[in-house]
């Protein structure tokens, strides 16, 4: 195995360790500690959570490295941070401060409306959003070692995450059921490398870990995404925009482990205080999921 492939394997492996876990958006070292204490398997450090980015409008960029470092010092779990789609220099900066995972994210304003970052040129791992199988495999071809649904961040509305996860899973099932001589045409239709389609055909899954993200606000939302095939969940605005963040965070962590047990989910859903208010998909002007395809 050459050095580049070795790195890619190690980076895929870190995502495997995050499975069955909850990755939480945090904006301060205090929030990071609350998240770790509640059982987050990693935190996403950012200056504003997606709901506030949406409310504030304007151009949204990578967070201040000093703020990210403060969070790195506050917790022992992996720390992730977002860079803009196609912003090679922001990604280089995040690698320079030894971030554990970079999220090349549609939540920030895209820096490039055509090209994503060549993630194979980096040593640190990348997670990218995808709405369907083609998008997921294109990101993996570019070097992403973890995939998440795009959902519609900052809305508290889970409908898009559900739509993307269902679509991706049904496309995977379709590829699995194909004859081998049909895979060439499928690679053409999906606009992805042939060998990745073969991998999906043979293994019935993406070659990397696949999380749910966008709009997850309750333990039931998290359990829903796990039942639909997610291997873990990102919770953005849903925790620190709610009435009792620590309690809600703990409940969502337990819901991911016990997603198949309605009785436990019922107990976990009790008395969590106010959930984030949320906005319905139809009420929003800016569809972040449409950024970068």
């Amino acid at each position, binding site marked *: 195995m050459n050095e580049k492939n*070795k790195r890619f*394997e*190690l*980076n895929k*492996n*870190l995502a*495997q*360790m*995050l*499975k*069955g*876990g909850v990755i939480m958006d945090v904006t301060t070292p205090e929030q990071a500690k609350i998240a*770790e204490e509640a*059982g*987050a*398997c*990693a935190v996403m450090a950012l200056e504003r959570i997606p709901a506030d980015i949406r409310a504030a409008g304007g151009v949204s960029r990578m967070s201040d490295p000093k703020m990210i470092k403060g969070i*790195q010092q506050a917790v*022992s*779990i*992996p720390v992730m941070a977002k860079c803009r789609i196609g912003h090679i220099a922001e990604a280089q900066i995040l*690698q320079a401060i*030894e*971030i*554990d*995972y970079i999220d090349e994210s549609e939540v920030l304003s895209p820096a490039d409306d055509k090209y994503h970052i060549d993630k194979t040129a980096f*040593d*640190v*791992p990348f997670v990218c959003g995808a709405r369907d199988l083609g998008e997921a495999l294109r990101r993996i071809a570019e070097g992403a070692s973890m995939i998440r649904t795009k959902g519609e961040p900052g809305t508290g509305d889970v409908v898009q995450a559900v739509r993307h996860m269902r679509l991706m899973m049904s496309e995977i099932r379709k590829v699995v059921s194909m004859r081998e001589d049909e895979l060439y045409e499928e690679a053409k239709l999906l606009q992805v490398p042939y060998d990745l389609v073969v991998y999906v055909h043979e293994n019935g899954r993406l070659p990397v870990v696949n999380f749910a993200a966008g709009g997850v606000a309750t333990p039931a939302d998290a359990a829903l995404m796990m039942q639909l095939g997610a291997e873990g969940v990102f919770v953005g605005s849903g925790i620190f925009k709610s009435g009792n963040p620590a309690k809600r965070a*703990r409940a969502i*962590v*337990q819901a*991911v*482990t*016990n997603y198949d*047990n309605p009785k*436990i989910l019922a107990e976990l859903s009790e008395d969590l205080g106010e959930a984030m208010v949320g906005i319905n998909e139809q009420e929003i002007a800016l569809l972040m999921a449409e950024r970068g395809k």
Partner: protein
Amino acid sequence: MKIGVLALQGAFVEHEAALAALGAETVEIRRLSHFTDGLDGLVLPGGESTVQGKLLRESGLFQPVKEAISGGMPVFATCAGLILLAERLSNDDAVWLGLLDVTVRRNAYGRQLGSFRAELKVGGIEKFPAVFIRAPYVEQAGRETEILARAEEKIVAVRQKNMLATAFHPELTDDLRLHRFFLEQIGGAK
């Protein structure tokens, strides 16, 4: 042979696949009702030790698992599992099960950029492909603890009575020799 795999968080599916490939039956342990009689061994998988430790406590599994292991149930712990088993952590106030006489340093190789792969001699096994992901190592092993492997001087695999623990992840490669070693130990103990 029936092996319980702690399935609270982390890479438990990978362990199940390795054990199944060797002909063992596996049971996912997510809550107390899954931790039944008739298990021949237990696997503590990789993942985040802070998450797994908290979920062990909150699920009510903590005490039964601790008692089973101190009662002699064979256990194979990897990475986060090693941290859960350790009696002492040098850079963390937490102690979880506290059954293995070692002092462990968490995230001993730093952040993800420090993750690496090495070929190691592990006990009688030559050239084992060892994958270290934000891994711990053992700073100090007790007198009763047998050292099975070192990576550049650091202790990365140990055995003490019924407990086998590695700082690396045998479940992440196709090499099944350490899982086979674990199952053989159980067979031999019977």
